[in-house]
Structure formats: structure tokens, C-alpha cells
């Protein structure tokens, strides 16, 4: 390993870097800096994954690819199909990971502010950032494609060199995806004003996941494309079109990367001035007033704090968009397919998924709620009296309940129109009661004061397995709804009452638990801050 590093940092590589306008000395300084910061978990989830997070993701991909390989071998897939399937899977998975990582890494105003006045040229900085991202490629590509490459030997008509071909193709694909992801941000930086860059980056990060959720619609979409009008009939014409598309793609990537290396640091540091200077005016909320009247001023503070930061906090929005985009498509799809079919009818109605989709949305919200960009503002809570934190937790509950109510109210008009008021009201009551149970359960995920911690990459690595387990639970619940409950209105009404009661009592317990968690966090931070005072000798 040392020998490899010596070669990498040797004069030959330095000369090659210099040819591309990269200053080798500063390049390695930055590579080491980004590596150190990732390992020390500074500005977590913004500077690439640390080894622990990548290790967890790697193990998950090994297991997942192993299962898929077994399926492929049992199904006697041809080597070409096996390769194509895994390359497609790799492209989708890596575009999600790398677009998000490139966004976190490249659109980082804090880093821009520290480094913008240092004598670093754009090419050097971009090269260091790309190298840092390539760590993910080098680590995760074998994790996802190692077993399929070896397993390919068990496929019919597979040559002895199949693993080499598979791994080479996988590395080529992932490197291309990494460069393309960076190029996307180059384009954004070139054409999007600095103050809109953060939001644009968040939306760009959510696109692949939304695309994955939309994949089921692809055959329908392609069926409607007038291929004959678009694709030339002659083979020469097709080849020319393919070459033109390839040339345009390469040019787009090169232009994007060149844009990154222009005045990149200045534009990123300028983002710190961007944001919600306008349009973020304080509005009086009726819901906040209601929460205040029901549970006091501290509850109102909890409601206002969490609901406003949900809209404005960069870290929350970034992570939420990435997870909520596919879920929003799933909700839209369940609603679009299911709103016409009465859940009390004989056939299965996808609308059964709706309460659980809302619940999953609340799970994501609560899981992401503790983390924020301005976590250092947590000191404010150190000064709050302990009972105020209990009431504050009630305010957070009120905010989550409001989301649930709004989602159900939005669905109400169509359901009433299609199913009649009785069935619609019963279904919505059932949905609200189910949602109350979800809120009570998921509030426990908000471990401490909302928006007061740095994002934890280990949690995001666990997201997919947890989601898959959640889907299994949801599947069971939906089966019970379809086969047992929605056979009679009395059963649904009884289930609704039981769920509502469970949601109410569990909700109260969760509010108390969250209040206690918040007090523990404050006590812990006050204890830790003592070390600072010792160090400055006060």
C-alpha cells in the first residue's frame, strides 16, 4: 500500500497532474484534508462517507448482490443478461449515491468560506474533490459487483475471464457516473445563481431516487414514444445518431467539469450569503396559535421551531427530499390507482397503502428531524427550564399531527366524491388513527432536540435495509386491512377506535419520552461544555 502511495505521490503523477493545470502539492494537501475531515466526521454527510459508513453500505451491497446472483444463476441467465442487469442496477444505485455525495461535497459553503481566500486554483480543487469521490467508487464498486462477477462463472456459456470483464465494465460505468454527477453540478454552478445552488443541488440529488420510483412506468412511456419518427431507419443513420448522442454526452460532461474548475470556490463561498433572505418572512400561523392555546407558549415554540426549520434547514431539506421524492411518487401512484376503487369493494384497492405511505413519510420526517445545518444553535435550549422542554415536545407532536391531518384533508374531496361520505369518512378516520400510531411510534426516532445534531452517515447507510423491513410490515398490515378489516364497516370503525386510543396513549408517552430525551441531551451538553472552560483556564 505504501509503495502504491509513493508512486501516486511521485514525480510521474505530479507531472501528469500539472499537465491538466493541477498544482500537485496543493492537490495532495486537499486530498489529505478531505480524507481527515471525513474520518473525523466533520460536517458529517457533507464530505464523503467515512470508512465506517462505507463499510456498512459495502456489507449491505454484498448481501444484496449475493441474493441477486443466486437468482440469476438459478434462472440460467446468459452472461450478457447477467452483466446488463448488474450494470443497470449499478448505474441506478451509484447515480443516487454519487449525485447526493457530489452535491454534499461540491456544494458546501462552509468549506468554500475557509478555502476561498487560499491560493488554490479551480482545477486543483476540483481534482481533489473528484479524487475524494472516487474513493466511494473504488470501495463500493467491488462490493456491489464482486460476487456477481465471480458468480457469473456459474452461468451457462460463461468464459473463464468473465469476472474480469464484469469488474472492468462495472468500474468503467461507476467512474463515468461519478464524472457525470460532478458535471451536473458544474452545469448547475454555471447557470444557477449562487443563492439558488443549495436548493438546486437538493433537487438534483433527489432525481435518481425519484427516477427509480418511476421505473415501473418506463415501459408505458417508451411505448408512447414515436420511435420511427425519432430513430432513422438505416443502420448508418442509427450509427450517426448514436455517435452524435455519445459526442453530446461527452461534451456535456467535459463542459460541466470545466465549469467546476473555473471560479468554483468563489461561487460556493458566495452561497453563504444566498438563501432565504427574501420570502422567509415570519407568518402568523393559526395552527401555531391553536397549539399555543392547548399546550402553552413552549409548545407553540416547539411547533414553530420545527415547522419553520423543516422548510428552511438545508441539511433537513436535502436529506428529506432524497427520501421523500420516491415516497411522494409512491403516494401519488397509490392514490392515482386507488382513489376510484372503494376499499370496501371485493377487489384489492391500492388505496390501502395510503395510510401507511403517510406513516412512512412521518417516519422519514422523524428520523431526519434531529439533524440540522445549524446544530451549534443548540445552546439556546440549555437555558430553557426543564418543563418547557416537555411542552416543546408537545409542539413537535402538534407539527407532525398537522402534516398528517393536512395530507388526509387533501385526499378527502376526491374520496368523498367517488365513494360517498360514509365510506370516505370511515377510511379517512382509519387513516388518521393509523397515522396517530405512526406518529407515536416514530417520534421515538427523534432522539433529542430537533435540528441540533450533525447528520450521521451511519444512519443513512442503514436507511435502505430499514425501509425494506418497513415495507414487509406495511405489506402485512395492508393484507390484514384488505382480507380482514375492510369486509365490514363495523370492523373498520372498531379498529379505528382501538388505533385512535392506542395512538393517543402512545402519543402521550412519546411526548414525555421526547421531553426526557431533550433534557438528557441538554444535561449532557452542559456537562461536556465544562471541558472548554477548563481549557481556557476560566
Amino acid at each position: 500500500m505504501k509503495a502504491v502511495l509513493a508512486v501516486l505521490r511521485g514525480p510521474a503523477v505530479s507531472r501528469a497532474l500539472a499537465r491538466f493545470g493541477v498544482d500537485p502539492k496543493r492537490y495532495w494537501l486537499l486530498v489529505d484534508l478531505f480524507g481527515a475531515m471525513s474520518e473525523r466526521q466533520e460536517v458529517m454527510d457533507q464530505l464523503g462517507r467515512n470508512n465506517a459508513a462505507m463499510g456498512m453500505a459495502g456489507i449491505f451491497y454484498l448481501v444484496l448482490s449475493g441474493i441477486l446472483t443466486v437468482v440469476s444463476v438459478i434462472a440460467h441467465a446468459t452472461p450478457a443478461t447477467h452483466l446488463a442487469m448488474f450494470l443497470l442496477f449499478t448505474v441506478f444505485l451509484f447515480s443516487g449515491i454519487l449525485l447526493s455525495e457530489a452535491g454534499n461535497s461540491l456544494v458546501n459553503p462552509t468549506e468554500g468560506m475557509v478555502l476561498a481566500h487560499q491560493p488554490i486554483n479551480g482545477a486543483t480543487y476540483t481534482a481533489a474533490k473528484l479524487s475524494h469521490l472516487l474513493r466511494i467508487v473504488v470501495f463500493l464498486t467491488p462490493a456491489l459487483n464482486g460476487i456477481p462477477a465471480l458468480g457469473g462463472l456459474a452461468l451457462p456459456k460463461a468464459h473463464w475471464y468473465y469476472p474480469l470483464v464484469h469488474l472492468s465494465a462495472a468500474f468503467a460505468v461507476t467512474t463515468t457516473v461519478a464524472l457525470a454527477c460532478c458535471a451536473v453540478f458544474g452545469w448547475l454552478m454555471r447557470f444557477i445563481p449562487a443563492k439558488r445552488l443549495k436548493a438546486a443541488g437538493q433537487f438534483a440529488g433527489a432525481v435518481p431516487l425519484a427516477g427509480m420510483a418511476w421505473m415501473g412506468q418506463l415501459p408505458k412511456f417508451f411505448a408512447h414514444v414515436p420511435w420511427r419518427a425519432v430513430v432513422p431507419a438505416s443502420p448508418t443513420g442509427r450509427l450517426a445518431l448514436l455517435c452524435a448522442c455519445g459526442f453530446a454526452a461527452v461534451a456535456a460532461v467535459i463542459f460541466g467539469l470545466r465549469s467546476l474548475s473555473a471560479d468554483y470556490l468563489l461561487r460556493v463561498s458566495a452561497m453563504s450569503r444566498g438563501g432565504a433572505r427574501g420570502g422567509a418572512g415570519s407568518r402568523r400561523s393559526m395552527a401555531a396559535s391553536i397549539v399555543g392555546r392547548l399546550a402553552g407558549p413552549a409548545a407553540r415554540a416547539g411547533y414553530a421551531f420545527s415547522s419553520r426549520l423543516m422548510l428552511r434547514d438545508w441539511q433537513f431539506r436535502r436529506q428529506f427530499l432524497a427520501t421523500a421524492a420516491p415516497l411522494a411518487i409512491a403516494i401519488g401512484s397509490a392514490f392515482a390507482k386507488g382513489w376510484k376503487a372503494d376499499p370496501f369493494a371485493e377487489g384489492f384497492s391500492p388505496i390501502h397503502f395510503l395510510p401507511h405511505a403517510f406513516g412512512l413519510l412521518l417516519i422519514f420526517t422523524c428520523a431526519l428531524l434531529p439533524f440540522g445545518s445549524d446544530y451549534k444553535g443548540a445552546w439556546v435550549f440549555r437555558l430553557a427550564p426543564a418543563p418547557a422542554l416537555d411542552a416543546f415536545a408537545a409542539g413537535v407532536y402538534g407539527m407532525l399531527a398537522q402534516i398528517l391531518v393536512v395530507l388526509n384533508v387533501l385526499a378527502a374531496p376526491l374520496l368523498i366524491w367517488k365513494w360517498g361520505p360514509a365510506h370516505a369518512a370511515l377510511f379517512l378516520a382509519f387513516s388518521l388513527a393509523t397515522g396517530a400510531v405512526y406518529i407515536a411510534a416514530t417520534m421515538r426516532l427523534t432522539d433529542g432536540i430537533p435540528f441540533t445534531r450533525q447528520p450521521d452517515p451511519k444512519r443513512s447507510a442503514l436507511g435502505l435495509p430499514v425501509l425494506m423491513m418497513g415495507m414487509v410490515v406495511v405489506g402485512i398490515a395492508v393484507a390484514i386491512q384488505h382480507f380482514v378489516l375492510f369486509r365490514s364497516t363495523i370492523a373498520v370503525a372498531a379498529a379505528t377506535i382501538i388505533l385512535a386510543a392506542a395512538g393517543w396513549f402512545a402519543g402521550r408517552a412519546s411526548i414525555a419520552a421526547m421531553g426526557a430525551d431533550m433534557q438528557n441531551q441538554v444535561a449532557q451538553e452542559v456537562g461536556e461544555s465544562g471541558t472548554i472552560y477548563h481549557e481556557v483556564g476560566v
Partner: protein
Amino acid sequence: MIEFRHVAFAYDRVEVLHDISFSIGRGEIVGLLGPNGAGKSTTIKLIAGLLTPSAGVVRVDGLTLPDQALEVKQRIGYVPEAAVLFESLTGQEFLELCGRLHDVEEERLQHRIKSLLEVFELFPERDSRLDTYSKGMRQKILIGAALMHNPDLILLDEPLSGLDVNAAILIKDLLAALAAEGKTILYSSHVLDVVEKVCNRAMIIHQGALIAEGTTEELKASTHRSTLEEVFRTLTGADGASPGVSKIIAGLRA
């Protein structure tokens, strides 16, 4: 050393600096004064090559910005108003990073770091991560980082923020000594008495315009005031008791 000719700058089409012209010679310590939001930090960022003027010419040591920003950055030391640091690095590591980015030779770098940390009384904490440092300690690290490569031009944006009295006195003496060495210093501050004592010259910016420039004695004479604070209040329209104070008290009583 610094030349500002008819410079204007706008954030999102809102012009915050209007047609500002001044020049600062080598070895001068110039104070940049003004109320919050007047444009002091923007002026400093323009000189540091962090912003691009929407009109006019900015030159540093004969180099035109933003075209020669990289060369300018080699020559300047900059203490930003916000103490943004890589907090997972230690004080020693952060100073090493800044020195190495400026190509300071390793032996000289270590010597400078040791001297600075000792003078700033940070040597025992050199291996502690910056997230455990107090505000004053971070400010000292920022000042140290700006001086690490022995720059010709030092841009200081509120450098005394968070420093204790002894450290503030040390910085004032250091600035005077650096100016004697031929360094050029542009010092933005709200602390008027420091500017009065340390700087050869002061410039007052108000609402994006340079409204006064000269030695403190010249400014006092031209406004017929006896202190720089009175000059400042007169020129920025804050003469007399602030009406805001009575509003705050009335609000607290309500």
C-alpha cells in the same frame, strides 16, 4: 499597494457599494469604519479576490482583480469576520494546512507555528481539535493562519472579536510592528479607539459610499469634533441620543 477606482458592487442586483475610490500605500495601517451593513466586509472581500466588482477596477500590488486573483491570494493574509474553520483539525494542523497551501518551507513553517502558538498562549492546546477552542482561541488561530506565510498585505475584518484584553493589546502591538516592517494593513472594526490608536489613516463607509477619509486628526478637524466616536456619529447620522434605546425600554415596560 491597494487601488480602488470607481468600484461598485451589487448582491442580487442590489448595489451595496457605490462608486468607491481610494488607494492605500505600502506600510500604511488604514482603519475601515462604518455601521453594520455599510459595506466594510464587502470592500475587504473585493480586495481579497473573494468577490468580483460589478464596476470599476481593483488592483493589489499592481495585480488586477479578479483576473490575477491567485497571485493576489499568495500575497495577502486575510482574517474573515466569521471564524469559520475546519473544526475537526487541531490548531497545529490548521496552521500547517494554511502554511503549506502558501508554500511555506517546512522547517520555517514549524518554527513560525511554534512561535505564534507560544505568543498566543495556545501551545499547550496545539493538539486539541478546534471544536474545543473558545471563540478567542479560534480568533487567535485565524490571525496566526493569516500571518503564517508572512504576507505583504494583511486584511483584518474585526480581528479583535472575542479576544481578551491582553490578546487585544498584543494584536495592536503586533499590527504596529508589522507596519514598521513595511506590511500594509487594512483593518475593519467597530472599535473606534483601537482604530484611533493603531491606524495612520481612517476611512468611513456609510450606506455603501466612502463618506470620509484622512488621518484621525484631519477627520476631527474637518467635522469640528474632539473624538473619533463623535466624528463617526456625526458622519453616519447617529448624532445625539439614540431613539432606539427609548423604544427598547418602552417595549420592556409594556
